């Protein structure tokens, strides 16, 4: 089979990238058109879907990535039971488009619709309904796994290899298809409410008051506020609602056609935030599932706004608000320019994956442009705080955490390692596990 060369003549890194565009490396790629396509032998591979992982967990330093977008066929859909089976390169957006008109929705939706089913499994993704529904892996009824020894198996919840493959970072083999239990919804519309808060205490109180009555909750935090303003932000809560029976159309994203210096990004985000904060202390609206679940998609390719050096996203979970306060305090004093941070309280529903990230507590997500050494230092300090408070950092977002941080956050790491397919490897794994 022919292999795609990833380095263009200019010597500039090309080929598949991660979403944060850091590290920028040459990445070889091998597209798959069918689940039974031959895989290269004697060289480690890694499945690559939409490249929405931010750091290096979707890249492979030792061989090609397998582009799974060619595996995007539906296999079956039971519209009465809401059970959908599709090849692993199918995106959640494609699933939503297919099932919404029949009154169903993927049970867990992240900030972007451009995530493959395989990626949703490999990272055991979560959404704004984690306190209700748990992570994606809880809703997977079965999956097909192809290993480098040639074996093909169907895995179910309860199988040890299933528990390793969910949140398994693509390291246990090639997920060829996924069968998922969808969620019944009254329409494609969401009743949403946004409420301003002035402190983390207020945010926590809002969440206490909302978590039983709203299926979807999340907060935006002003990452630049300091001192007494620290922790101010906007709390969003929503429920799927009755609405027009024709589902809302899948929007076409506006594309960012060029790399831009970050100075273009900051006014954009700050203006949006300040407009919300200053003028809309409390506001209700009915919005489509596309806009509600996938705000990141409004500006396609927004990652390019961070310029050539790329950016980091740091997502951690800590057991209580004390840890969040410490992380935010550090962020605001460092002037690393995280304009907007996202805060969400995970629920108690456990994840089936050995390396699942979601666990009870608060998860804080911070975007920072890559300014070299000072940024790396700041992120190491963030990790130190996460360790102190007994939390974990999310591998899907990571490009630089230490092996120690990873190990402390994931106590089942050694057990997981026994299930890794020796023919699969990621840059993340090589870096963190040495």
């Amino acid at each position, binding site marked *: 089979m022919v*292999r*795609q060369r990833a380095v263009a003549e200019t010597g500039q890194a090309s080929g598949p990238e991660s979403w944060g565009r850091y590290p920028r490396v040459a990445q070889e790629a091998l597209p798959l058109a069918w689940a039974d396509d031959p895989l290269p032998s004697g060289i480690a591979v890694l499945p690559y879907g939409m490249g929405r992982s931010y750091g290096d967990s979707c890249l492979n330093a030792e061989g090609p990535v397998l582009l799974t977008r060619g595996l995007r066929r539906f296999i079956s859909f039971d519209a009465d039971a809401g059970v959908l089976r599709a090849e692993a390169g199918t995106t959640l957006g494609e699933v939503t488009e297919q099932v919404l008109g029949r009154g169903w929705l993927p049970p867990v939706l992240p900030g972007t619709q451009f995530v493959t089913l395989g990626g949703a499994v490999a990272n055991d993704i979560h959404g704004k309904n984690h306190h209700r529904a748990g992570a994606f892996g809880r809703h997977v009824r079965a999956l097909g796994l192809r290993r480098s020894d040639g074996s093909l198996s169907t895995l179910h919840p309860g199988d040890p290899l299933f528990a390793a493959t969910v949140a398994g970072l693509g390291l246990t083999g090639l997920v060829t298809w996924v069968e998922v239990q969808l969620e019944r919804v009254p329409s494609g519309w969401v009743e949403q409410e946004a409420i301003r808060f002035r402190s983390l205490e207020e945010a926590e109180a809002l969440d206490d008051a909302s978590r039983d009555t709203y299926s979807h909750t999340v907060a935006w935090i002003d990452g630049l506020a300091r001192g007494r303003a620290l922790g101010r932000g906007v709390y969003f809560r929503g429920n799927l609602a009755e609405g027009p029976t024709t589902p809302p159309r899948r929007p076409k994203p506006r594309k960012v056609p060029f790399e831009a210096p970050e100075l273009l990004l900051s006014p954009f985000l700050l203006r949006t935030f300040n407009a919300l904060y200053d003028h809309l202390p409390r506001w209700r609206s009915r919005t489509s599932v596309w806009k509600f679940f996938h705000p990141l998609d409004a500006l396609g390719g927004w990652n390019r706004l961070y310029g050539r050096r790329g950016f980091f996203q740091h997502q951690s979970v800590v057991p209580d608000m004390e840890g969040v306060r410490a992380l935010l305090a550090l962020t605001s004093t460092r002037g690393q320019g995280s304009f907007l941070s996202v805060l969400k309280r995970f629920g108690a529903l456990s994840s089936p994956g050995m390396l699942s990230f979601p666990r009870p507590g608060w998860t804080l997500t911070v975007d920072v442009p890559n300014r070299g050494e000072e940024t790396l230092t700041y992120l190491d300090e963030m990790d130190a705080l996460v360790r102190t408070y007994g939390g974990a950092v999310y591998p899907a977002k990571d490009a630089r955490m230490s092996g120690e941080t990873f190990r402390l956050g994931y106590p089942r790491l050694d057990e997981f390692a026994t299930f890794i397919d020796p023919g699969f490897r990621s840059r993340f794994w090589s870096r963190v596990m040495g």
Partner: protein
Amino acid sequence: MTGGRRVLILGATSAIAQAVARVYATSGARLALVARSREHLSAVAADLQVRGGEVVLQRAADLCDLARHRTLVAEAEQALEGLDVVLVAHGVLPNQQAAQEDPRRAVASWDVNFASAAALMEAAAERMVVAENGVLGVLSSVAGERGRADNYVYGAAKAALTAYASGLGHRLRGTGVTVVTIKPGPVDTPMMVGRKLNPRLVADVDVVGRRIHRALERGERVVYVPGKWRWIMAIIRALPIRIFERMRF
């Protein structure tokens, strides 16, 4: 608008054919599918059924077996209860280097890309003319517009196919059958693996599928996909040969 369309796709597992078929399936079309691999064909058929298509026939066949063409078309016509759209979409991209060194390889690729495609078009046209109805689409390529060093074995077959489709369309004038010649530029498909291309010139397969669907439904006679290739190729065809031969693309 295209609900209930009766569509036969030959080479139904090609990435472009799948993209076109997805659009037809979503609009509730009835589909007959022919491709080489039975397993891949059933994966495509299942997908189209989930999307709302009704797959009434699946046939695994080597389309280079010319003797089967009439039977395949007749079976499809019967299963679909008529033919509104026939799309000839099978093809291979031979390795240029290997094919120019070994004529058997070149000829084998011409059998797939030209001879079998032309013969299939005749077989389909024969039935469609009787019914005085239908659109007969064929996937040619911009590569057939002017032979270039790095893919002229492929380009020669597509040039022949374009000429054949033109002649067939001419012959069928007034019969109620329309021939649509489709000339995609580079598309993000497995066929493109290993080729160095400016990513800006590589089209998304879903965009291409929707465009081809529209061309078939409108009966456009010659369609470049995406449309900018009409102008790019007009320029490339018009280049004086001394300049053309100096260019690297």
